[in-house]
């Protein structure tokens, strides 16, 4: 049977405080993706969303699937959304499985966020209101002023720095590379040049992570169409060659067995267990950079370098630059192009594999792209291969 594949992609306007309705953003990305795939909305028979409309920090979720279904008057066999999945790419992985199982032909997958506008309206961050009590695993974290994923992630970053001697100067290459690429992407939100001195002088957020190690909330929506590879029409199919979504350790920020990696350790291992390709076959990698340290962990988890060696691997930035052996964050990543919960990275991988990157296009036309999303106890990754 033909593999499942991405056969079209679309992005809405993306930016800081667009003051646009999240449903409008969603319909913009969805209609563009359907058109990009050469389909009509009558062809769509499945929808998958991350995360859908859920109880979460204000603006994190977009519209729920039933709203999108009704707005586009879709006729569906199947749908799936939510947070309880294998990282942000979980609903898309579910879509690939739905296509493989034969219950759907064309699944519309979307991820919408309007955190930037929502936070502006609420005049505060997504922190729980005082008086609310923390529940579940957060009951053991929030009372200690660990309000943000930045704090939880910083605990891993410090552990990794202590174990391997990695420095802020090395980590900086993730933010500097993303910003350099963003300068060539007209849709990126932060495009001004960033220097190492500028990085090191930035406000500390939670040691050792400073301002430029943290991604930026935006408003925007990404959609892709997942179908069988032989159903591709306008675009060359980007076959989903392999999926990594394993979680073999304890699913907890505090209790994961190794605080110098995260769930991506298991997802990355699974990706290669299920593929005939190897890390050296990857032409472009869009690795999750919600926080810069995640990218180091993904590089190691995916076998691009050994455990503890990511700092040396990226040290002068040349290897991961647009013209390097392993270009990363070619559109600016989440650090400079905005927090689209992994789907901006997925979209950029598609753009690169289709050769539509313009000024930021990787010159030697990429055939194999790697998309990885998640940090802490969430991880999922995909190998995309241009047919």
């Amino acid at each position: 049977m033909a593999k499942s594949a991405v056969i079209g992609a679309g992005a809405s306007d993306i930016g800081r405080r667009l003051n646009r309705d999240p449903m409008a953003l969603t319909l913009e990305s969805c209609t563009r993706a359907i058109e990009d795939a050469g389909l009509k909305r009558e062809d769509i028979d499945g929808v998958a969303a991350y995360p859908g409309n859920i109880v979460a920090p204000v603006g994190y979720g977009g519209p729920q699937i039933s709203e999108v279904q009704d707005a586009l008057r879709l006729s569906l066999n199947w749908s799936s959304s939510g947070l309880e999945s294998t990282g942000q790419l979980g609903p898309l992985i579910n879509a690939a499985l739905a296509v493989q199982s034969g219950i759907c032909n064309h699944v519309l997958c979307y991820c919408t966020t309007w955190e930037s506008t929502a936070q502006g309206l609420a005049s505060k961050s997504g922190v729980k209101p005082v008086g609310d009590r923390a529940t579940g695993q957060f009951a053991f974290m929030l009372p200690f002023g660990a309000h943000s994923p930045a704090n939880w992630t910083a605990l891993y970053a410090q552990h990794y720095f202590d174990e391997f001697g990695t420095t802020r100067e090395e980590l900086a290459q993730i933010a500097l590379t993303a910003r350099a690429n963003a300068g060539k992407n007209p849709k990126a939100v932060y495009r001004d040049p960033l220097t190492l001195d500028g990085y090191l002088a930035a406000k500390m957020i939670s040691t050792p992570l400073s301002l430029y190690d943290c991604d930026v909330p935006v408003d925007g929506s990404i959609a892709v169409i997942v179908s069988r590879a032989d159903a591709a029409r306008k675009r060359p199919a980007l076959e989903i060659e392999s999926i990594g979504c394993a979680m073999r350790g304890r699913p907890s920020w505090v209790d994961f067995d190794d605080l110098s990696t995260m769930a991506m350790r298991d997802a990355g291992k699974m990706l290669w267990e299920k593929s005939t390709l190897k890390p050296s076959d990857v032409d472009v990698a869009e690795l999750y950079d919600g926080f810069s340290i995640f990218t180091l962990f993904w590089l190691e988890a995916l076998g691009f370098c050994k455990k503890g060696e990511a700092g040396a691997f990226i040290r002068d930035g040349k290897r991961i630059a647009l013209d390097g052996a392993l270009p990363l964050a070619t559109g600016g990543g989440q650090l400079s192009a905005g927090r689209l919960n992994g789907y901006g990275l997925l979209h950029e991988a598609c753009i690169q594999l289709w050769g539509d990157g313009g000024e930021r296009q990787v010159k030697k036309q990429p055939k194999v792209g790697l998309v990885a999303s998640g940090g802490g106890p969430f991880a999922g990754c995909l190998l995309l291969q241009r047919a």
Partner: protein
Amino acid sequence: MGMRILPEVTPATASFWRSGADGKLRILKCADCAQFVHPPAPSCPFCMAGKLSPEVVSGRAKVITFTLNHQRWSPLDDAKVPYAIAVVELDEQKDLRLMTNIVGCAPENVRTGMTVRVTFEKADDVYLPMFEPC
């Protein structure tokens, strides 16, 4: 620290959050396999057999990682920054961990590997286990 977000106290977690009333830290322990279990669970995940009951522990621990938080996450947050958030491992058992704050020393002096002991901060109806150098 300023206004804290307090934990919801459930039947399963009450023994942990109220333990500090007498200055002692208690962790659930399995009557069969003698393993400590945290966060609180309804049954022992090691042997799936034994009954779990709160047991007093030494309160001694080691910092296995930490971060100094410099950011105010809400306009309502009046905490003095930076403050030290840490993950400590209790002496009683490998990987028996708590997230906590390190108090009783300048945040800049916190280091991985530091030995620390428990001290409690009462907040409303709970006693938050904090740790200080020893």
